[in-house]
């Protein structure tokens, strides 16, 4: 076979390989770990790089020509779409797996030295690879039940990761909280899947999207799906597990990816599975109050308003609670909650502007403001993953050298850790959305489009963005500035592999910040188009 032939072969099978390679790696890790620690580390990074290679192969192909790729398991073609398991990859999936690939490379690279002194590393890498496999599965699958399975794989692996340091009671308890939350959420999602299956005799998302009728049972399924996925995505008031889990996990950066996979699923359910009924008129209201008032209540109206209200709560409570925290990792976790609020705000604004659905092609017709808002929300997903990820890496680096995450006990570290300080500053500007970092470009899109919907929304968003800046300035002040402390005299800069991990993310942040237009046109726009034009996804089977 020529190289070209091999590439086509790999591209053709890449959706399966993206999940299968880390899965194989996960089960091989304990056996290889018996030989030598170094060989095991090499093996793990090779597995992750191989997976990322497939991810970039697949997503560059999908994003460049805007097509859709369907991979049927166990058969050459889909002769019976109801019972076959599919992976369906369109622009949105391709966009999400890029985030997953970046996060997993960085997380694995960072944890080599970070966990060097601890026992049970074989199990740790097994869990990390399992979690990566589950995360990619959630992002790629086109089958509802398969989604549930990958959701559970991800939550079991991440629960075990959160409780990895079993010597601390708090981390075990945080792990238990996480598994209780995610199991109940997943069970309600399964309930909704069963309801949909009972009505339409299908589990395939595209098939369901084509045949859904929006009966009463579909409403119940929608409620269960939205609330279950919202809990997994950490939306206020179901966000309380996030600070516990993020604050205790050894590497919280992978959990960010898992959370965003749930957020992706939320978008997929609302826009694709229920997409053909989004603009349905549910009630016609007419009453006299001096003048006759007459208006329609549409599904997208109530969904949009609900999502926007939740988003505002998420932003405000996330920011206010973060401002008060004295623990670095918990503070970042609350900031992550607030950032999720921004994405939801943008998506809610986009849902409100839907005017009608073209039922023949399955296209959702949005106003221009809505399209911009959608782009801003999707752009913010990748920006949030990078910024919050960088912050967690810095927190991990500080924990590595000082064994401390409390802001009250740290101080004056900038003298000994120059590079970490620079990376923290980059992350600070990016999270707060200060130009010219990447956070600004997406937040600008969100502010401007929400201003068109209602100025109050964008005012609240901007105010909370200022508070985000304020609290990271507080972190900067209390960790890096201040006089030398005696107990931190002997502290050195963190090892090179950890610095490289932070540098990779920082470089991506700066590139995204300097050339937002290129990113927007090449990555975000295909994803937004995939979300709006469902005809391709439905026709993919």
């Amino acid at each position, binding site marked *: 076979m020529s190289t070209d032939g091999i590439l086509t072969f790999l591209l053709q099978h890449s959706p399966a390989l993206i999940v299968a390679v880390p899965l194989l790696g996960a089960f091989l890790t304990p056996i290889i770990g018996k030989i030598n620690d170094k060989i095991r580390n090499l093996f793990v990074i090779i597995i992750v790089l191989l997976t990322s290679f497939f991810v970039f192969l697949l997503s560059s192909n999908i994003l460049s020509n805007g097509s859709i790729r369907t991979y049927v398991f166990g058969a050459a073609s889909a002769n019976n779409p109801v019972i076959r398991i599919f992976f369906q990859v369109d622009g949105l999936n391709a966009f999400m797996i890029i985030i997953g690939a970046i996060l997993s490379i960085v997380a694995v690279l960072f944890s080599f030295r970070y966990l060097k002194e601890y026992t049970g590393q074989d199990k740790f890498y097994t869990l990390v690879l399992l979690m990566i496999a589950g995360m990619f599965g959630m992002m790629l699958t086109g089958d509802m039940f398969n989604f549930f399975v990958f959701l559970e794989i991800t939550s079991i692996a991440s629960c075990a990761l959160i409780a990895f340091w079993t010597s601390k009671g708090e981390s075990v308890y945080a792990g238990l909280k996480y598994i209780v939350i995610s199991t*109940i959420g997943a069970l309600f999602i399964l309930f909704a899947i069963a309801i949909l299956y009972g009505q339409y005799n299908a589990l395939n998302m595209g098939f369901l999207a084509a045949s859904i009728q929006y009966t009463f049972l579909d409403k119940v399924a929608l409620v269960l799906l939205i609330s279950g996925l919202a809990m997994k995505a950490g939306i206020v008031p179901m966000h309380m597990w996030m600070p516990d889990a993020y604050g205790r996990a050894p590497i919280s950066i992978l959990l960010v990816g898992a959370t965003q996979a749930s957020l992706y699923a939320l978008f997929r359910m609302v826009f694709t599975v229920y997409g053909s009924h989004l603009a349905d008129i549910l009630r016609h209201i007419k009453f006299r109050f001096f003048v006759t008032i007459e208006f329609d209540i549409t599904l997208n109206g109530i969904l949009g308003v609900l999502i926007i209200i939740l988003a505002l709560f998420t932003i405000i409570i996330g920011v206010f609670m973060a401002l008060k925290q*004295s623990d670095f990792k918990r503070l970042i976790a609350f900031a992550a909650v607030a950032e999720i609020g921004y994405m939801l705000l943008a998506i809610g604004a986009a849902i409100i502007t839907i005017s009608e659905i073209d039922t023949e092609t399955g296209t959702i017709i949005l106003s221009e403001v809505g399209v911009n808002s959608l782009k801003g929300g999707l752009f913010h997903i990748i920006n949030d993953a990078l910024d919050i990820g960088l912050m967690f890496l810095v927190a991990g680096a500080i924990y590595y050298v000082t064994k401390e995450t409390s802001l009250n006990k740290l101080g004056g570290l900038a003298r000994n850790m120059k590079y970490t300080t620079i990376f923290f500053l980059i992350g600070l500007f990016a999270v707060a959305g200060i130009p010219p970092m990447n956070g600004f*470009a997406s937040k600008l899109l969100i502010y401007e489009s929400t201003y068109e919907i209602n100025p109050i929304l964008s005012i609240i968003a901007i105010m909370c963005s200022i508070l985000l800046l304020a609290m990271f300035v*507080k972190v900067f002040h209390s960790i890096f500035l201040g006089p030398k402390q005696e107990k931190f005299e002997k502290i050195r800069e963190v090892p090179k592999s950890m610095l490289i991990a932070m540098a990779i993310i920082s470089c991506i942040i700066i590139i995204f910040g300097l050339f937002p237009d290129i990113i927007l046109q090449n990555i975000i726009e295909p994803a937004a188009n995939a979300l709006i034009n469902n005809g391709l996804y439905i026709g993919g089977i």
Partner: protein
Amino acid sequence: MITEFLSKILKTFETGSGLWNPLVWICAIVVAFLLMYILRGFGNRKFKKATGQTQAFLSGNPEYEKEQMHVKGGNVYWGFTETLKWAYTVFDKMHTGNVSDYILWFVIIMGIFFIVIGVI
């Protein structure tokens, strides 16, 4: 080809109602820093180290050791949290750290969704 590449990079990022180009902003920031540096040059050169000039003036109070002067992270926004105490008491009551309460919130939100989506 180079001009094409440049025009691709320098193309401004349109947001629907405005535009945004980070490269222009970076130029502006660099110019601002240059101006600042020039202004700094006009400063007074009489400053001497290790004299009374360097000591901080704290309303006549004596200056503490540097370690004691550092404001701890928990105290930085004391005024802000004190003013918004009414909000923070509510938020603190929400965050009990008890897993049953997390599920209770989930059920409440599910109920609200059900009332809004299912009934309308």
